[in-house]
């Protein structure tokens, strides 16, 4: 039921929501008991839990949105996501596990566009409230370090 084509649809909507600045739509992609992390491949591979962004439950996902919109100080910029074709890696209770490559570009005034992050999504996707949702999205990035700041989710 959760086919590869459906996962691609989900990822396209996800990218569209973030890239068009509709940050308030972002929590909609997650289940209430979700885990969302942006974590380096280094930490992931070594089993270290620390992440650049660490959300354990939908509340922390929503808090991230609120904090970015209300307290963060940053130079205006545009993010642009590219998500590769999803690959279903397994079936589990109520859904599937899957991975998809991603690349994120950053554009800022007076600068050249820059590849900011490159890596893979490690997902657990389930049907919830009539739509496919992310029970887990680990954003595992390959790049060794972050170029200055990471403002928005990936």
């Amino acid at each position, binding site marked *: 039921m959760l086919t590869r084509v459906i996962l691609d649809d989900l990822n396209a909507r996800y990218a569209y929501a973030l890239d068009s600045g509709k940050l308030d739509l972002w929590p909609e992609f997650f289940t209430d008991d979700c885990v969302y992390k942006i974590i380096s491949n280094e930490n992931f591979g070594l089993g270290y*839990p620390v992440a*650049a962004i660490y959300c354990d439950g939908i509340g922390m996902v929503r*808090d991230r949105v*609120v904090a970015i919109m209300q*307290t963060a100080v940053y*130079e205006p910029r545009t993010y642009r996501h590219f998500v590769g074709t999803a690959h279903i890696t397994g079936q589990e209770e109520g859904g599937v596990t899957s991975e998809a490559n991603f690349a994120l570009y950053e554009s800022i005034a007076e600068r050249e566009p820059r590849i900011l992050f490159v890596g893979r999504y490690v997902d657990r996707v389930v049907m919830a409230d009539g739509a496919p949702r992310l029970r887990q999205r680990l954003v595992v990035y390959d790049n060794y370090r972050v*170029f*200055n700041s990471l*403002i928005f989710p990936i």
Partner: protein
Amino acid sequence: MSEQPLEVPESRAWPQEGSTTRVPYWIYSDPEIYKREMERIFRGPVWCYVGLDAEIPKPGDYKTTWIGDRPVIVVRDEDSSINVVENRCAHRGARLCWAPRGNSSEFKCPYHHWSYTLKGELSGMPFRRGVGGKGGMPKDFDLAANGLRRLRVHNEGGLLFASFSADVEPFDRYCGSEVLSYVQREFSGRPLQVLGYNRQIITANWKLYFENLKDPYHATLLHAFFVTFGLWRADAESACVSSEDGKHGVMISRNRDRAGVDETSTLSSFHSELVLEDKDTVTPRREFADGKVVGITLFPCVVLQQQANTLATRHLIPISPSQVELTWTFFGYADDDEAMTRLRLRHANLMGPAGYVSMDDSEVLNQTQIGATACPDDRAVLEMGGKTADNCDHMVSETLIRAFYNYYRTVMGL
């Protein structure tokens, strides 16, 4: 083989006018200044942070890192002591270890297989006596004279430091007793466990980052998240403490409640309506008896951070006059309970490249670098909290920065 003499033009004179309160912008972009910093500071009589003891727990465990612009290997020897050697083969200069970490009983260079002990001693190479009676190294070739450069090492409660200088003071004298006591408060010898890294490029001169952590006053203004949730407030009981020579600094404060009716609530950075769903993110559990929040800048390249329940070292690795790599190593104590680890990870959301608080810093420091680079002949004005570099019992001051530059000028001959 002495260093090429560094020529800093005479026009690079420190502003006369109120010299303690003025910092010329050319120190943030001039390549000759940068070279002199590498020589006199990073390769000079200092203790440079190179990592945590807990990163290389087993004999043979090593990590690679940099001291200024020099690559080094930090390795645990068979006897569990720590060695630091230059990461560069004595033969023809190839980096010896190419991976960020590993475990090995020796260092073997991939190019011609020269082999070194974990102490950096050259132990041999293939074909030393030739092949079939031909070739090989000269008879008088002296293994002992061709090892890796080995650095002095100090382990302070799990914090590892190294020095290129044979003349560097003992670590306790280097810190001074007061700063040392703050270091030992967090690094008492209680075993640490690494929780992970955050690595980022700060697109600013390394000193701008160092200044940022000697400037408690910006945190009450720039960081709306801090102010709103009472984690850092100008009206908290606070202090600024420097080592006597000014090179190290300690900012001390306390986590408080959400702001009430005081100066803070009138600031534009205070958002009284803001509520988080996950209260734990902004609710520290008390873990140090003194109830303090302490940030230490240990010259020249590490910040020791304790804020809410997140503990980290922040290692500064200069890349160029306008960029510095910042490696955050988050850790806890080996005997932390699960609830504490859960809080440490949650509170790590405040830190790093996407930190609720630190994100503001990487952004504003980049803007400062842009401004300072564009106008090298102008200068910063550091008069908050007075014109001297004395310690103070509040945080509305730039005294730690003034103290730092008093020291810097001496070392740099500026």
